């Protein structure tokens, strides 16, 4: 992989990968480190990678593996999600600050509550939810990436959805 190819991949998939890292780590500094380490690992392994494969899926699987290793290595570290204001979270949904009229239909509170609930999910469930809804991966792709059976992915997705729905309704009632 040349530097130009890497730059092109970063341009194309950087946002998707970074969003995934942010949710996985729940911390900007950790996300920066994981994002950077992922690209360097992808580069390191590029000689063994079939260039025709799904680059985005491959990057996500590398990030996931690095994050698991990192957690094992630094098990003593207990990261807590930084507290962000409601407006910060909602603004993040519209990075350019100009939501379209269609986007505006979705209330900011709903986005915020769902994201908050996703961050509460146990990591195995959160990973499946992020890969499916954020990265638009099929259940079969997720099963291959996370090395679990298709049925397990399906079950985790179901339980994650149920939890999110329950929490979202609880939280929206509170507000």
């Amino acid at each position, binding site marked *: 992989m040349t530097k130009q190819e890497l730059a092109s991949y970063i341009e194309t998939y950087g946002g998707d990968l970074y969003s995934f890292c942010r949710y996985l780590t729940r911390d900007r500094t950790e996300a920066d480190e994981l994002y950077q380490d992922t690209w360097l690992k992808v*580069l390191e392994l590029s000689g063994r990678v079939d260039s025709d494969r799904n680059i985005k899926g491959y990057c996500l699987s590398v990030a996931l593996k690095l994050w698991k290793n990192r957690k094992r290595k630094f098990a003593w570290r207990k*990261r807590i999600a930084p507290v962000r204001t409601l407006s910060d979270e909602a603004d993040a949904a519209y*990075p350019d600050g100009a939501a379209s009229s269609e986007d505006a239909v979705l209330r900011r509170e709903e986005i915020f509550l*769902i994201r908050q609930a996703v961050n509460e999910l146990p990591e195995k469930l959160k990973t499946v939810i992020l890969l499916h809804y954020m990265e638009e991966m099929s259940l079969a792709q997720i099963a291959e990436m996370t090395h679990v059976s298709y049925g397990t992915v399906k079950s985790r997705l179901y339980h994650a959805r149920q939890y999110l729905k329950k929490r979202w309704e609880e939280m929206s009632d509170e507000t």
Partner: protein
Amino acid sequence: MKHDKDEWENLLRRALAPSEKPSETINRRILQQASEEKRMRQHKTYRKLIPAAAAALMLAAGFTAYAAWNYRNAGEIAGRIGDEKLSGAFAKEDTARNADGVSAAESQTYGGYTATFLGLLSGDSLSDYAFTAGGKLHSDRTYCAVAIQRADGSALSQGEEDFFVSPLIGGLNPALYNAASLFGSYAEFAEDGILYRLLECDNISCFADHALYLCVSDTAFYDGSLYRWDEASGTITRNTDYQGLNALFTLHIDPALADPVKAQELIDAADTAARELSETPALPSSVEEAMAWAAALTPETIADSCVRMENTVQTCSVDADGWFALQPWLVNEAVSDTRGGGGVKAQLSTCFDGPGTVIEGYNCSEGMEDLVITTLTLSDDNTVTFAAWVPKDVSIYLR
């Protein structure tokens, strides 16, 4: 707020659509590190599997310079690393050469190592594997097999020592034109205390009208101090003053294979690759300057030029095992891209030698305006106080 199933699915997708973006600085840093990593690993990239359809016919341009009997031969080495096609090609050439009388393996011993040149083969699509770079398939390759062992007979294992193996071309500066710039890679393994390495690079047969060499040194990269290049005559020789391994074998390739046009293409490609590597995007000078400025701060001077962000200050106690835990903090919530940290549990002994203040770290994305410096203070009462600081006057967090 109730939604039906489709609405709920849609809501999840919309809420979780990727919305975070990495900073330009971090992307630049990745590309910068990538260039450094690439230099480090230029010779260690394992080869890609070639799609079956792309495996072309082996051309008759192959040429075996040597075969050896005291070591595994080149064909066996290729077979051992799983390249049956190359193994067969080496074997075929060995057989052809054997009919004419195979030369004995050539060994050279310097600096406590014996390097043995076991064979060379050049041609198009000789391998089960293909090397690609820049999206381009490099199928016309030269393969060199060498064995390296300790002269005292003690075992050498894979990865234990750095070695650099490369063809060198008379008339061309070896520091610029070697396996690295000729898109080289290698595979290696150790057996019976002997390290076997199979190097490949773009086909050097087109340089057959030049003197051709193979260097084997105990360095990770080409080191100009190990060999002498006479710019006037173009000859390359060993630096006999060097105390380590700097073997230099002469390669015998049929001059009829020389192809000046193709040789120039290789030189141009090597020049382009070298230029790309040298074009490392630098961090913005504003970031470099801010980091240098922060590095010069000390716990004693930080208050002179920085403002302590009182909202980030927190004090925690140290538990019986010497751990302390910091709660999440943000420099200034009112700033949209505010900097902060998660809750961190750390061990006292890794942060302090005794009571006092240490600068824990600093970082920025743009420069002085978003620079944040963090400090930890251990008090006599065995509590730890954390604080984030920002430069006076210029910080966005003070607006």
